[in-house]
């Protein structure tokens, strides 16, 4: 009998069992946890506050990491061109990148799941309209849409307002540009689920379409949603980094990983490679572990890929 607390159920589940056997997944998960904990407790563990201009000394600029010649023990990973401690800046930057990634994906998921459910459940004209809309949206690349929107916004309202609203704008743009990914996946699952008898059974109970969609069909489509979510967070972080690198993302005063990479880029040939390379590695590792976790989820949640 499987009674007991939720935690016990989780520990007994096949999911946890598979997870324990998969070393890559464990390692990825641990790394991701370190990332999340480190960046959200950044104000506590970072030695300096990179947003505070009063403690930044321009004389400290471009100091290499502590273990290199000319390194300074005060700055573990060195400093950037403005004299900010790179370690602290990376922690704060990762926090911004992750926040944007997660919020953008929540927005994508909200839009995509709602529209996908409606499209799949009602079918007919609604379905046609929404899916053609998705096709159109997909025919523009996310970056292109983002660049146009952000550039126009900057031109219209000036850089100052933009810098204040940068996080929000990035979330909105990345969130809206990628909804078709969710909508298509959800729609496909809904089409399959809708044919099953339990849907007839709840229609016979007299439930309203909204409740049937969200309460009955949606939970049955969750596993593909979970899988694409991990990959989409990674994608959103990459998109944000790319936009910031192009100067359309986070401002240098409040850098994300992308803008940090960008700010060091001009110094890379003068020998200050760490300003670009270290945030780059941090970004790559973050995206890599998310994709690995996504792969793991896909394998576990796909019954066709059961390994014994």
């Amino acid at each position, binding site marked *: 009998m499987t009674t007991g607390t939720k935690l016990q159920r989780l520990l007994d589940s096949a999911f946890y069992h598979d997870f324990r056997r998969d070393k890559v997944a464990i390692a990825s998960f641990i790394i991701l946890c370190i990332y999340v904990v480190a960046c959200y407790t950044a104000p506590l563990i970072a030695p300096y506050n990179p947003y505070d201009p009063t403690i930044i000394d321009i004389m400290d600029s471009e100091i290499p990491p502590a273990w290199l010649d000319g390194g300074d023990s005060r700055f573990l990973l060195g400093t950037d061109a403005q004299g900010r401690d790179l370690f602290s800046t990376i922690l704060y930057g990762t926090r911004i990148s992750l926040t944007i990634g997660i919020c953008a994906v929540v927005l994508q998921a909200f839009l995509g799941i709602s529209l996908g459910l409606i499209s799949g459940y009602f079918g007919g004209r609604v379905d046609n309209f929404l899916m053609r809309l998705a096709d159109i949206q997909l025919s523009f690349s996310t970056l292109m849409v983002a660049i146009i929107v952000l550039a126009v916004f900057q031109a219209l309202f000036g850089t100052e307002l933009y810098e204040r609203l940068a996080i929000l704008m990035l979330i909105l743009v990345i969130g809206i540009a990628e909804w078709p990914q969710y909508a298509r996946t959800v729609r496909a699952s809904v089409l399959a689920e809708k044919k099953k*008898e339990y849907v007839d059974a709840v229609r*016979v109970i007299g439930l309203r379409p909204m409740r049937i969609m969200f309460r009955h069909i949606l*939970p*049955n489509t969750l596993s593909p949603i979970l899988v694409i979510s991990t990959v989409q967070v990674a994608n959103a972080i990459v998109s944000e980094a790319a936009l910031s690198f192009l100067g359309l993302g986070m401002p240098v005063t409040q850098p994300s990983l992308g803008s940090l990479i960008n700010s060091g880029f001009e110094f890379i040939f003068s020998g200050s490679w760490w300003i670009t390379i270290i945030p780059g590695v941090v970004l790559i590792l973050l995206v890599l572990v998310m994709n690995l976790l996504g792969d793991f989820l896909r394998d576990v949640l796909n019954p066709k890929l059961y390994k014994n």
Partner: protein
Amino acid sequence: MSLLEVNNLEVRFAMRKEELVALRDVSFRLEKGERLGIVGESGAGKSVAAFSILNLISKPGYISGGEILFEGKDLTRLSLQEMSAIRGNRISMIFQDPMMTLNPVLTIGTQMTEALHAHHDISREEARQRAIDGLAEVHIPSAATRFDQYPHELSGGMRQRVVIAIALITKPPLIIADEPTTALDVTIQAEIMHLLMELCNNTGVGLILITHDLGIISQMTERAIVMYAGRIVEEGDTRDIINDARHPYTDGLMGALPQKTTPGQRLNQIKGGMPPLNGIPDGCAFNPRCPLAGDICRSTFPEYTTIGTTRVACHMAGAGDP
């Protein structure tokens, strides 16, 4: 007033090239607490009839004529909202495969209380209590534990009990059971039928039982309808239909029962198959397979004649025993 009165119901399916008539001129009534059986081969229109009572035929099908009077209201004329208030509340339905009709990701309890919450203003606690009582009523042991379990933790027979409990939880006056035991093995089938019978007797609920098992019909129902190619070919008291079938199709179905054959012999069968909806022959739809078919059967559509308690659509029915 009858509980349910179906008059001249006609259901069509609008296909790309033509309109197919899935049900033609279906009329029957069901009194309060009565148990009615509907038999027929696959494709005879049994399930379409059941779904049309709940106004749930999915596109491209639609009700093209006739009326369905339930407690005096014509269900074909109700708005979506009025119909929702009847579905699951006044009329419940039990489906064929309990493996499929329960949502795998929701607990038994959630699925049971849902109908209550949809139709009544009722607190969670009260709903939970009624659901647990409902589970006990269908003889599920340790009902309170089952309430929090998921469908995969229950066996097939258990699940069908749960489905029956869900159907009964709003205490509807009518339950439609669409082949409720087809997916279960024979011992479980007997248990479920016994349970349904018991519940009908205890609660006075009316039952429409759709099946292709004449044995079940004879045990469970008071009146029976035999359907063929979308039409009622014979209707009457179950006893008369079983013992003294008037329509050659009913007779053929009876003859096909294994009990009618001596061991070692081939089972009797009705030759041929049901005609597709777009190829129903002229005259009597059954004429190509009928052993008694004469010229009149090939040319003239048989109207209903009443013999004793049964109503039958056959030219040959009056002319002595088929």
